[in-house]
């Protein structure tokens, strides 16, 4: 089978994901052809998610869930796994940040700089993708893929330079993966010396690759707008992640690409972590944890279970936890009455309305009568986020359509109900694979033609 397929990697903060879709999906969309990759089929958790983690412990380097398990076992010895690489990739001076020596808690052997560890992780991800592709009946027949990765829009706007640097990491990872191969997936890890030698060789001779960049908001626009036809010319994306809440306004024609309205972009530093802290404070106030030890124990317990706790809180309006022999209940209104939360909700509401007004003006100028709005990221299901995007039905004469976080097509009968529950976590990788080429922010050959790496024009 010839290429004709696109493979998109979502190099996530906590987990990495990958999905493939036919290149012609935009013109002839068939939900059944969307193929998320099983990156961790033998793991205890969701097989489509690969933990983003590297752990160095002589004489091995461990990856993924094995790295997390080992780091947890040695937490008392002040050891830690390297996680949240994506945060590092958004650093102002990326090249300098990559050459930083990690703290001894992460690499007590002093063998690597951060760049090496990220390259090793990307090689592990690459090996997991090779395994995932081979296990998929349809994808195992495909000989090559157009490759992309998804990333947040970089604040400095220098997409080409950042893309060149990040794609360079993928090129080195390709060399490491070719050298070490499927041994990267061994839960016992790879030999530290072999890893050190492999990254050294990869720096000297990275494998030329072609890879494109799609911004996360654009990927969200792609999975939301696909199948909507000409209606989806103007779209607002509200993305509440762990560290930031971003509002992005996109306008254009899906087939040719969207351009962002920079004056509408808002990034708030309050997001999921901020909500978590409010919930913990509410819980501490409700509990009888008086001593510092009891409060620390409660804080630890809630932090470790926060994802599920918030899911229950947002879905049913209340959630309970057991602590010190008692069951304590937190209601959504406890969160909504918090002063800090109210301040955040107010600021977010104003920022969203500002972006929507600018987008509606653009829609009017373009002769459009409708715009779409969608919430994505970990906070998409939060009732206050959903209320915000559903509150406004019309701005002047422009109709506002709030789209569900999980698009209708993810409920298609072909998936037998299996895609929708996991869709939010795979959404960006899927959107990135479905997007037409016009939606890419940058593309280029790395490393041979890294100078040719180009940022695509905002408008066609």
């Amino acid at each position: 089978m010839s290429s004709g397929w696109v493979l998109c990697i979502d190099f996530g903060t906590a987990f990495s994901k990958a999905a493939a879709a036919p290149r012609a999906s935009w013109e002839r969309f068939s939900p059944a052809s969307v193929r998320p990759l099983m990156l961790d089929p033998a793991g205890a958790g969701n097989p489509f998610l690969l933990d983003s983690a590297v752990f160095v412990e002589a004489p091995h380097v461990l990856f993924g869930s094995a790295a997390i398990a080992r780091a947890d076992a040695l937490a008392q010895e002040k050891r830690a796994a390297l996680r949240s690489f994506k945060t590092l990739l958004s650093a102002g001076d990326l090249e300098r940040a990559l050459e930083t020596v990690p703290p001894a808690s992460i690499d007590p052997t002093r063998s690597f700089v951060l760049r090496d560890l990220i390259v090793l992780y990307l090689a592990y991800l690459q090996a997991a993708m090779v395994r995932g592709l081979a296990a998929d009946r349809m994808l195992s027949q495909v000989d090559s893929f157009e490759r992309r990765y998804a990333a947040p829009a970089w604040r400095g706007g220098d997409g080409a330079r950042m893309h060149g640097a990040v794609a360079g990491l993928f090129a080195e990872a390709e060399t490491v993966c070719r050298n070490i191969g499927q041994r990267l997936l061994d839960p016992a890890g790879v030999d530290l010396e072999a890893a050190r030698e492999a990254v050294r060789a990869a720096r000297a001779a990275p494998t030329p690759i072609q890879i494109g960049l799609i911004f996360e908001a654009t990927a969200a626009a792609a999975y939301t707008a696909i199948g909507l036809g000409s209606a989806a010319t103007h779209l607002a994306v509200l993305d509440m992640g762990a560290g930031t809440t971003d509002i992005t306004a996109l306008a254009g024609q899906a087939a040719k690409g969207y351009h962002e309205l920079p004056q509408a972009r808002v990034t708030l530093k309050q997001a999921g972590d901020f909500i978590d802290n409010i919930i913990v404070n509410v819980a501490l106030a409700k509990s009888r944890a008086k001593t510092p030890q009891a409060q620390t124990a409660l804080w630890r317990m809630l932090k470790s279970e926060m994802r599920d706790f918030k899911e229950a809180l947002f879905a049913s309006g209340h959630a309970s936890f057991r602590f010190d022999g008692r069951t304590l209940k937190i209601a959504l209104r406890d969160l909504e009455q918090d002063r800090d939360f109210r301040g955040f909700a107010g600021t977010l509401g104003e920022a969203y309305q500002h972006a929507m007004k600018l987008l509606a003006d653009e829609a009017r100028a373009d002769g459009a009568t409708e715009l779409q709005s969608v919430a994505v990221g970990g906070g998409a299901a939060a009732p206050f986020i959903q209320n915000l995007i559903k509150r406004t039905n019309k701005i002047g004469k422009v109709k506002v359509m709030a789209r569900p976080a999980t698009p209708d097509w993810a409920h298609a009968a072909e998936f037998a109900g299996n895609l929708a529950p996991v869709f939010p976590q795979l959404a960006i990788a899927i959107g990135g694979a479905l997007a037409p080429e016009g939606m890419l922010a940058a593309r280029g050959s790395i490393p041979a033609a890294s100078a040719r790496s180009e940022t695509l024009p905002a408008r066609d």
Partner: protein
Amino acid sequence: MVEALAQAAWAEADAALARALADADVLTRLVKKSGPAVEGALAMLRQSLGQAARKRGLTRLEEAGARAAFDPNRHVLIKISSKQPKDVRIVIPGVVRGETILVKAEATPVSPRRKR
């Protein structure tokens, strides 16, 4: 083959999970006045069940207390009635996964609305 078996096992699990979710509703109604410890334990049970159900893509069919036109494909009467009612009041919501109804909503007949 492995995929097919896993899918079959999940289908069985979905049915059991859906049934347990509805059973937990019944239990909640029965033990509502039995004290905070029982209520707390029940809240935790419901929370875990709800979470497992949502992660498997199960959602509720109808809302408790809502009035609906009787549809034998969606509703089951709590007490056997010789005559099919026109309208029902939902007592225990059902459970659906995608377009498939796994557990019908339990309902009681209500008298037709009087015309004014």
